[in-house]
């Protein structure tokens, strides 16, 4: 092992090298594999065709999330309701048959543990610091919040991991994103990550693993870190890492799949050594000041198209890069926006609070805080609140958050990916506009022709009240002190 100071990424990488090839490609061991219904059927089929087994079923956890409708899953007699969409039902049936055939741990769609795969992994303690975590889903980056090297893979790689518990990989470069200072009142981790993506661009992290460093991230809750790490991929980085600390250990302790008793103490000792060494070098560094960040929304069709809520829709002519100028022009046409239009004048018809980015208990609390005692605007046609897992749902109900949402005129749903990606019945109709806490504002992401504005849960809640993009700080002026706490 080299004596020079190493980054956290290098430490995890080095600890997982099974074999190094002369060209630098490494065979990397994978400790944890999350599987869902959409990107796995072809992988299992590949195994069957080649007569291969799953090498370590004990390191795999499966759950369905993308396809599941978020309407009730049990009928009046407590029996399961069959999914109406035949293709979705077939994909779910394929997953259930595959986990059965290959002996993989699975949370059924009616189990309390079911939820979005990236909410379930950390919640169950399946995700642990210093592990390598993969899933056939690009938002696997989320798990880096706990100090795991976690990244999304394609279905061929899912099959490769099932068969070999390894991947053939080239080491990435490292990108330090350092943010110091305190986020202002009404400014959340979501606003920060949107601002970061705006700063470095949707391709800014390509070929890199991000490490989030600085006092802003140190004081951030684990759920806030999950939101930030989740969107690393929107900046092009396959993974985003946070050094594990006391917050991480407190979050994981006692989780069902986390180490227990003496194993726990030994694990914590090991995890303490994961942080980047003093003097470790990064290939690039970007610095931001937390106090510069305002509540942030997207106006275009790439997550890099961000602006503070107090700002305006930009003029395509203001971009120096030719292809970006064309892209912005075409984005504004798709989004139905005019250059120079004030963002706070943009009217909204749909609200989506949920997704692997923002469906955890703290997200729901932030939204509920804004909605308590308020009503949704008449302009809003549909407003969904979709908890990230059955356990989040129970917790929220125990805290009475569901009542707040329902009384404000929002719908309280069953856990799943919901309106983030238009694979289940929750969609935004063509030409209509959604204030969404999800992660992608791509064309057609929330439904063909749908227009997406990404923002934080508090900002989406504020938009629900006013029916347009709104600076949450203005709406809740009187209770801002409470929000900061």
């Amino acid at each position, binding site marked *: 092992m080299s004596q020079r100071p190493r980054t956290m990424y290098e430490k995890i990488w080095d600890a997982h090298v*099974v*074999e190094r*090839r002369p*060209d630098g*490609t490494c*065979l990397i*061991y994978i*400790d944890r594999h999350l599987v869902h219904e*959409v*990107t796995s*059927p*072809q992988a299992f*089929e590949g195994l069957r065709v080649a007569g291969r087994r799953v*090498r370590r079923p004990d*390191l795999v956890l499966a759950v369905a999330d*993308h*396809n599941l409708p978020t309407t009730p899953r049990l009928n009046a007699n407590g029996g399961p309701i069959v999914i109406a969409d035949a*293709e*979705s039902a*077939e994909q779910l049936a394929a997953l259930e048959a595959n986990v059965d055939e290959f002996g993989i741990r699975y949370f059924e769609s009616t189990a309390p543990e079911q939820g979005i795969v990236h909410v379930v992994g950390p919640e169950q303690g399946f995700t642990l610091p210093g592990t390598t975590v993969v899933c*056939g*889903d*690009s938002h*696997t980056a989320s798990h880096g919040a706990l100090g795991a090297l976690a990244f*999304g*893979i*394609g*279905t*061929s*790689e899912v*099959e*490769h991991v099932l*068969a*070999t*518990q*390894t991947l*053939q990989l*080239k080491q990435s470069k490292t990108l330090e994103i350092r943010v110091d200072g305190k986020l202002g009142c009404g400014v959340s981790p979501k606003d920060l990550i949107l601002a970061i993506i705006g700063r470095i661009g*949707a*391709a800014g992290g*390509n*070929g890199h693993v991000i490490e989030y460093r600085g006092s802003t991230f140190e004081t951030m809750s684990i759920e806030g870190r999950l939101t930030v790490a989740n969107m690393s*991929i*929107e900046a*092009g980085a396959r993974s985003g890492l946070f050094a594990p600390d006391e917050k991480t250990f407190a979050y994981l302790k006692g989780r069902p799949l986390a180490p227990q008793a003496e194993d726990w103490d030994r694990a914590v000792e090991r995890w303490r050594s994961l942080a980047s060494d003093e003097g470790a070098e990064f290939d690039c560094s970007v610095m931001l000041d937390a106090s510069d960040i305002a509540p942030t929304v997207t106006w275009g069709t790439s997550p*890099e198209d961000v602006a503070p809520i107090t700002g305006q829709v930009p003029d395509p002519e203001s971009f120096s890069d030719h*292809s*970006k100028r*064309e*892209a912005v022009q*075409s984005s504004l046409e798709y989004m139905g926006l005019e250059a120079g239009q004030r963002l706070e004048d943009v009217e909204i018809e749909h609200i989506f609070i949920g997704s692997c980015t923002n469906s955890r208990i703290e997200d729901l609390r932030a939204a509920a805080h804004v909605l308590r005692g308020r009503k949704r605007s008449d302009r809003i046609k549909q407003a969904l609140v979709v908890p990230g897992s059955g356990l989040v749902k129970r917790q929220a109900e125990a805290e009475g958050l569901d009542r707040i949402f329902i009384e404000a005129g929002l719908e309280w749903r069953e856990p799943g990916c919901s309106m983030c*990606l*238009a*694979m289940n019945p929750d969609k935004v109709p063509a030409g209509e506009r959604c204030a969404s806490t999800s992660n*992608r504002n*791509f*064309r*057609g*992401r929330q439904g*063909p022709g749908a227009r997406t504005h990404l923002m934080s849960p508090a900002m989406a809640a504020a938009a629900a009240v006013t029916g347009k993009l709104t600076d949450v700080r203005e709406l809740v002026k009187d209770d801002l002190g409470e929000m900061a706490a």
Partner: protein
Amino acid sequence: MTPFTRIEGRAYPLGLSNVDTDLIIPAAHLKVVRRAGLGRYAFGTLRRQPGNIFDDPQFAGAPILIAGANFGCGSSREHAAWALADLGVRAVIAPSFSDIFSGNAFKNGIAAVVLEESAVQRLLEAAKLGDTLSVDLEEMQVVTNSGDCFGFDMDPFRRECLLGGLDEIGLTLASEAAITSYELRTGI
């Protein structure tokens, strides 16, 4: 996998930057349990626009696609690569690619060829005129029928896999002993 040595034909002059995988294949078409047959849904959002290149007969069956920077960003869905392959595309030329997409492309026999922005612009112009291009993996160059020639680099391991049409799982399983020894050493 079909080995990739040299392909020749017309190219879709897409040109857009930040082409995301939702644009390549919308999520509504991910509800499949097989790999085949996704080509007809490729670029569905763009295909709703009249006069789009994907429904232009002069480009029908083109084996090459030319795009702007950061092609394939977003979701890890390999359906994007399957849809392109099913459409008949064997090479995508762009100034840069998302990491996950380029991996998925290679695993499906599609070459993700990185060229300088200026070269991509030249090829885009040629493709719009309906010129024929060739992508040669042995010579590592893209050539137009008017004689322009652009060399490119590629990761040697990926190039070897593409040229040989190799099954990566088979290659890795040859390291079975090393994997077992890693598991014993780390106690996982």
